[in-house]
């Protein structure tokens, strides 16, 4: 049973096999990406959080567990974003086509046409999707845009609260309207 959706938020996870021999190149590429607002994921503005993680092998816990070596190394891509999955995958093709191809191009089964074949790109990632069983968000109804606007509004209000001290009533109202509208 999948529980990928909570409020207006979607939790996506895909696990794609890395082509043998590409592991180091992929890791080097991912680690070389700019962070923060320079990240490719920053160009997909519906993304709250996202990550790429290479899993070389699952951990071995010792007996009574038997070793469980996987034949491939895997790339996990996880994102918490606003809205539905189909349009998000389409956004990846539109907004970061070169970056997406540069990452998943190291994975087995990735369409040779990459993001220029939008349907193929979406099919590939949804084929490799791992559903979420329990999804938690502290603010599932808030979009990235609303979060950012609210944070900026709070800063604005803190500043105005200080500025408003000592103003007479008419001046307070005038400045409020000037700053925040009627």
């Amino acid at each position: 049973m999948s529980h990928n959706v909570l409020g207006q938020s979607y939790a996506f996870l895909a696990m794609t096999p890395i082509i043998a021999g590409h592991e180091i190149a992929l890791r080097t590429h991912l680690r070389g990406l700019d962070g923060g607002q320079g990240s490719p994921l920053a160009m997909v503005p519906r993304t709250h959080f996202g990550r790429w993680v290479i899993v070389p092998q699952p951990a071995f816990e010792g007996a009574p567990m038997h070793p469980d070596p996987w034949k491939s190394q895997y790339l996990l891509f996880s994102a918490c974003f606003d809205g539905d999955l189909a349009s998000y995958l389409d956004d990846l093709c539109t907004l970061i086509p070169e970056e997406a191809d540069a990452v998943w191009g190291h994975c087995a089964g990735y369409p040779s046409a990459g993001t220029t074949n939008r349907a193929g790109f979406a099919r590939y990632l949804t084929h490799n999707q791992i559903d979420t069983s329990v999804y938690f968000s502290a603010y599932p109804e808030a979009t990235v845009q609303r979060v950012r606007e609210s944070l900026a509004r709070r800063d604005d209000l803190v500043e105005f609260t200080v500025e408003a001290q000592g103003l007479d009533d008419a001046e307070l109202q005038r400045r409020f309207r000037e700053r925040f509208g009627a």
Partner: protein
Amino acid sequence: MSNVCGRATAMTVLTPIRPGRLTFTKLGFILPRKVPWMTEALRKLSFIHFARWSFIEAIPQNGMPQRPERPRYAYLYFESNFNGTWDDYIDAFSYIMPVRMRLIWGTSYGFPGAKPVQRFKEYITHNEFEADHFYGAYPEHTATMVLNALSLNDKFEAFRASSANLAPAEFAAAWRGFVHSAQTEL
């Protein structure tokens, strides 16, 4: 430190589930949807933005060059996006929801229990994978700051709508009331 973006930290953990215990583990996840004990506990851990659990029961096949993959075990995937340090996070998890953690990870090989916390930390470290790239859209803001800002914004919009046509003296009184009511968020 690619697990860190500003104040945000990524945690990615994969643990092998003992054979025959998958159904039991899943039951532990169905229950919270009916009685939201787990998500309520997570809410108490006020530094979590987003978290999730998934079961990897089979690895999707894509044909060659991927060699057919038939893992011996199912795996429990856990990820968290939180603010603060890794140590504080594990300490809080261990302190606030030890019983729930046994229900979640008790069927995984090697789970030592939530306490003593040092052994649990070693277990997580052993099964954790460092992110190769991690992004947060508002990395300098904690989950609490986000929640406060959202709440403040709702109060502000209500105040702005209700005060639009007030005379200056009434407006000033309403403003003081708003500031007072929003003290914790400001």
